[in-house]
């Protein structure tokens, strides 16, 4: 019989492969199992930590599932009214131009009720980072149709599927803001696999650098899931996302800086 050694022998700094993100608070996340918000929060917190920006960061969170972002990331945060985060962040950045300012918004918040604020803050080239979580549904209010809901997709307010003739088409707002001269870096990512997590984190790091250089608005869409709203298991949701959401909202950079 092989000699049984205590697990404590393996708990050494050189064996550490994963740790709780330093800037994530001890609060238990309220997100549903499999939801992309937790991962998106974590990598944002990691970037803020790794860039040494905790004392320089002011976040603006939306109305929606991520309304409680301020409970989880240990930075100063303002909670905005529904859709108004880019307007709020505009003033924060203009009054405190040396700070790192981000908004974190869902699809209903950013692409429906807040469309004007989104378009105009991007058009003014506000020197902020907008993180846009697109899961094609209103999660917090119980799974209603969002501007990004796919054609034919069933939600609580389009129970027979989204009929684009009656309800309009899925809005590709990220492509719209990419056409505006005020945006500097526009990309669409996801956080459903380790490889995608790394790519998204890299995109956030780029946006941080661009903001330091006063380059204009950086806009990162994260196509995500909503297992509860989609009425799927987390695994099914990610598969459905890959097959359907990515077809409409293909991943990759949409507007990259001309260096």
């Amino acid at each position: 019989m092989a000699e049984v050694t205590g697990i404590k022998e393996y708990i050494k700094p050189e064996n550490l492969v994963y740790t709780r993100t330093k800037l994530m608070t001890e609060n238990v996340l309220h997100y549903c199992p499999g939801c992309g918000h937790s991962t998106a929060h974590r990598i944002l917190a990691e970037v803020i930590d790794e860039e040494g920006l905790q004392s320089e960061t002011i976040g603006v969170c939306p109305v929606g599932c991520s309304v409680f972002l301020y409970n989880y990331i240990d930075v100063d945060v303002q909670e905005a009214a529904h859709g108004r985060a880019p307007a709020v962040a505009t003033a924060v950045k203009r009054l405190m131009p040396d700070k790192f300012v981000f908004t974190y918004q869902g699809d209903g918040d950013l692409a429906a009720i807040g469309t004007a604020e989104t378009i105009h803050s991007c058009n003014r080239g506000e020197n902020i980072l907008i993180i846009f979580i697109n899961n094609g549904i209103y999660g917090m209010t119980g799974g209603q149709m969002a501007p990004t809901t796919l054609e034919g997709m069933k939600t609580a307010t389009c129970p027979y599927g989204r009929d684009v003739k009656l309800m309009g088409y899925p809005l590709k707002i990220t492509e719209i803001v990419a056409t505006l001269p005020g945006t500097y870096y526009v990309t669409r990512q996801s956080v459903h696999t380790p490889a995608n997590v790394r790519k998204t984190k890299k995109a956030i790091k780029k946006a941080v650098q661009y903001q330091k250089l006063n380059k204009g608005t950086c806009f990162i869409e994260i196509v995500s899931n909503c297992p509860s709203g989609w009425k799927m298991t987390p695994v099914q949701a990610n598969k459905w996302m890959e097959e359907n959401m990515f077809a409409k909202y293909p991943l990759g950079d949409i507007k990259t800086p001309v260096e």
Partner: protein
Amino acid sequence: MEKELRLMKGNEAIAEAAIRAGADGYFGYPITPQSEILEYLMEANPMNTTGMVVLQAESELAAINMVYGGAACGKRVMTSSSSPGISLKQEGITYIAGAELPCLIVNVVRGGPGLGTIQPAQSDYFQAVKGGGHGDYHLIVLAPASVQEMADFVDLSFELAFKYRNPVMILSDGAIGQMMEKVWLSPQKERSKVAPDWATTGKPTTRKHNIITSLELDPNVQEAFNEKLVRKYNKIREEEVRFEEFQCEDAEYLLVAYGTSARVCQKSVQLARQQGIKVGLLRPITLFPFPYKKIGALAGRVKGMLSVEMSAGQMVEDVLLSVNGKVPVFHFGRMGGIVTTPEEVVENLKSKFLKG
């Protein structure tokens, strides 16, 4: 530093006073009859002198939410608009009240409802004083009656806003906004370099992270917060009532009027006294808190009161509450953008109280 004498429109006076009060930011959207505020600030370009940010927003909604963001950083920020624009701002105003943020909102009132008219009115009294947005909250409401007060109340508003962590509204009207008078302007104040301890300025290692929000899902915690707001409003009611008396000492009848109507009523008092009718004027300067006690005390000395407003009768409800049935109270007012004349007020007073 001495005060400077200038001839200015009320709207211009507000703008210049904002710069001189050391305001950090103004966020606005054009609407008649107050667009001069934004225009003046854009021309003055205070970014080059005091560092004050001036921005034309895409809507009143965006402008008030910019105010929210700036106020949450502990900055002295303001917006201005006129009635339809102020209606749009109500969402932001209730969030600002709910997050206990200090700021200044200027309403240069025009007639309504709806798109109404661009002429002066006082028909936004209820909206300003009784709520406007949803939820239990109050603004501190100041009613200037001259271009001088348009200027003076800017600094006073910021002082009160920060003292109580509460939004303050200057409730003006199109007449005071547009008319020109001489105004003594205060010397330039420096912009504040210190942020309040609650402000979101970036979290240093020495404190917990600051969160600015009006959200609370636990009803017990929310109720405790509502009770805290009530205590604050009660303190404001105790300590911040402001009013002006005009020939009230021997008055048998009292006019109650604010803003432009108060200016008109000063003349009415003179006209009435020339006719041998002893009339006085009580001018509320703060509409919230309202001078209930003062008007209640005067009710014991006069035979009746007339609330004069450019509205269908809004402040009259607060006068009635003050008087509590002791003497008759009536309302007189013109609407739709028409400013009452002093003679009309006297005639109306006579018809109400001195028939036969």
